[in-house]
């Protein structure tokens, strides 16, 4: 593959802390290699800013291989940028060309307040998991693993739902800032497995209640979440959660 070098105009959201109003700042970067990852391009900018006695751009990142779910940049109007099923850390600069202007913003959602610059607070997701995203089995309680045979098809579907990395792109992509894709992925994973059976009804009710409490918006079947999900989590999970929720509500004894 031919590599090339480019000069870019960056328009990046800067916000000192959660109380600051924030605003865009413009930067030029030069000599960016098409081989760099997007975050390495930001590294180049930050190294320069530090040497110029300016504060570097704050952003969340850790594994840089598309699995930890830390990175969360809204690039040119799309969570994680232009590539399909790709996290920001796996997006590479050959997606851009010399002279491009790139606009970078944090996730925008009331339930994900900005901490600083591009860093947001996603603790709401942890609290949703706390409300029921688990199977209540203490260490030592388990039976032999092969005592629970699971149809391959269901196991595969459960795995596909479990592939969610909790990055929040679904919320950022949704005009309503709905967290339905995230919540439904966990509800689906556990509803598809026999181990999840005993808590199936309480789980979906509690997780949906917590989701609402956190202030995430409603789902209106737009599908932007699925389109922008870096792990390809399917809308089918939302349909399944809706069924689970309806059944749990209809059969509710309280």
């Amino acid at each position, binding site marked *: 593959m031919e590599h090339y070098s480019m000069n870019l105009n960056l328009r990046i959201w800067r916000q000192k802390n959660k109380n600051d109003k924030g605003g865009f700042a413009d930067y030029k970067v030069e000599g960016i290699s098409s081989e760099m990852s997007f975050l390495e391009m930001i590294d*180049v900018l930050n190294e320069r800013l530090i040497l110029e006695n300016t504060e570097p751009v704050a952003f969340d990142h850790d*594994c840089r291989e598309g699995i930890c779910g830390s990175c969360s940049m809204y690039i040119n109007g799309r969570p994680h940028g232009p590539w399909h099923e790709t996290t920001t850390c796996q997006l590479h600069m050959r997606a851009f060309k010399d002279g491009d202007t790139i606009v970078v913003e944090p996730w925008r959602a009331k339930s994900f307040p900005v901490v600083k610059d591009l860093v947001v607070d996603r603790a709401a997701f942890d609290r949703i998991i706390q*409300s029921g995203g688990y199977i209540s*089995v203490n260490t030592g309680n388990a039976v032999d693993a092969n005592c629970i045979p699971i149809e*391959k098809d269901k196991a595969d579907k*459960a795995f596909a739902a*479990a592939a969610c990395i909790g990055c929040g792109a679904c919320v950022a992509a949704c005009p309503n800032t709905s967290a339905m894709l995230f919540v439904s992925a966990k509800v689906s994973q556990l509803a598809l497995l026999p181990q999840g059976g005993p808590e199936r009804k309480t789980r979906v009710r509690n997780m949906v209640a917590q989701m609402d409490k956190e202030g995430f918006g409603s789902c209106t079947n737009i599908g932007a979440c699925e389109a922008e999900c870096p792990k390809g989590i399917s809308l089918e999970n939302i349909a399944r959660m809706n069924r689970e929720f309806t059944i749990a509500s209809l059969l509710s004894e309280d």
Partner: protein
Amino acid sequence: MALNSKIPTGELDKKWEEYKGHVKLVNPSNKRKLEIIIVGTGLAGASAAASLGELGYKVKAFCFQDSPRRAHSIAAQGGINAAKNYQNDGDSVYRLFYDTIKGGDYRARESNVHRLAEVSVNIIDQCVAQGVPFAREYGGLLSNRSFGGTQVQRTFYAAGQTGQQLLLGAYSALERQVALGNVTMYARHEMLDVVTIEGKARGIIARNLVSGELERHFGHAVLLCSGGYGNVFYLSTNAMGSNVTAAWKAHKKGAYFANPCFTQIHPTCIPVTGDHQSKLTLMSESLRNDGRIWVPIAKGDTRKASDIPEEERDYYLERRYPAFGNLVPRDVASRAAKERCDAGYGVGSSKMAVFLDFADAIVRYGKIEAGKQGLENVSKDRIVELGKEVVKEKYGNLFDMYAKITGENPYEVPMRIYPAVHYTMGGLWVDYELMTTVPGLYCLGEANFSDHGANRLGASALMQGLADGYFVVPYTIGNYLADEIRTTEIPTSHEAFEKTEAEVKERLDKLMGIKGTQTVESFHKRLGKIIWDKCGMARNEEGLKSAIEEVRALKKEFWSDVKIPGGINEFNSELDKAGRVADLIELGELMCTDALDRNESCGGHFREEYQTEDGEALRDDEHYKYVAAWAFKSEGKWELHKEDLIYENIKIAARSYK
């Protein structure tokens, strides 16, 4: 202080049973009064926090990431070993134990490794009960695959995301305990020191990474589950935030650091593309089953791979190791690649890469497929087409990842690969109970040294992290805490907390006060280069001696010229990183010191002076069959303590791959 590894007496396979039968217990009403601090929420930390919370202890868990779910265990690809023998292929606890000791080149402790093999089966049960979606067969039962260094199929997996699924299982168990009020979670917090009172670990000083404030936390015991130190090399497959700080602070407070020079370099990673590179990505070892590794015969050949004819290619592994070819062990493959690139035969724009070529495999599979389908007079193009389909089914996800990062299509052109730092076997010294040399201070998972000797086998890191957290420490910690039930909560106004916090603050002030001219990142890169060049895949006396001098000089330069923007009492990633890099620099010196002291080659530690005629690692069991545990004395001064390794159940032999 003499090292007491507290290995129970008795037969190897009865030790753990016996220990559990006689260990002291803490009754439930007392557990409620006992507080435990856990630093790190990867597999070891999350599983320990969940299990100890379930037992009723008051747990406080800390992670520097924004959520415990993001710890770097999440990135593990391949799988997790367990001696289930579901495949009826002759596996057993003893075989897993034996393979692990041998794979570690006879530098691990028998009793710990046997216990690891014993509890491995419980881990799979626990994870399935939690809803971890392991791969399954059509009959609904669990699937297994093979991994390096073994002759049985004992690896459980969830596609190429086993670490993610196991961590999310442990994370959900942890969050359940948070909801129940048994665990308090402190995300975006970093431990910056251990507080000791009368010689015992009694708490930590942590920094809130959002506000920058220092916090004091009391605990009757402290568990460090903070991962490995691979980032001492700058470039590694570790996460950007992976660091040695928690372990290093503990080391400076009296915890011995064991075998720091035992580091694992994985042969097949996507290579560095330039100075901008921030991290490296692994390409699974399984690819070497079908890929052939080569470089051009001519030095500095810049032609495309497809333009280099067969007779101008050097399949150097097949040439040097005809018996094993491309499937030589990790350390051998890594060193051979380095040798070719150092000699000027590397490929790609950086010249620090070799080809991993699937062209032959594609044709081979294509022919087999044509035969299966009963096709005759098949064109060459059709064979290639059929072969690509087979390769896609076997390795599709890896090929996709490669394409995304490099922009090249590995079905058409060979992959470019190069070895990369992947794991550290060394870590804080712990006894059988996973306690360090500081009473009340424990160390679990990759952060300790205990189970992998000088080389870790694939799919064993996940096993160890979860074994320590789910099934070992919940028992062993009771033996210590049973004697602590009369210790009431020590107020954090205690002078030891005051003093330790003052020291931490002084260091932060000092860092911020330097106001030099070079960035933290630039120092980290320079440290990485020194360690990689001189304490990496191959080491020698001269190189190590000069590395020690260079690291010392770098330390001095760092503390006089580092430039950190922003302030202390705010979100400041550069300050966080500066503290970590400062600790990695100090660790770098100890690593080189340990490597210099160990005059033998074993596992990942290859001293060029100690090799057989055909370039294999040459162990010296007579003089080095011990764990090197280093006690910190003063800046740049350590004292070596040796724990002799006693093999009562395994006969030590030279590892042979011929």
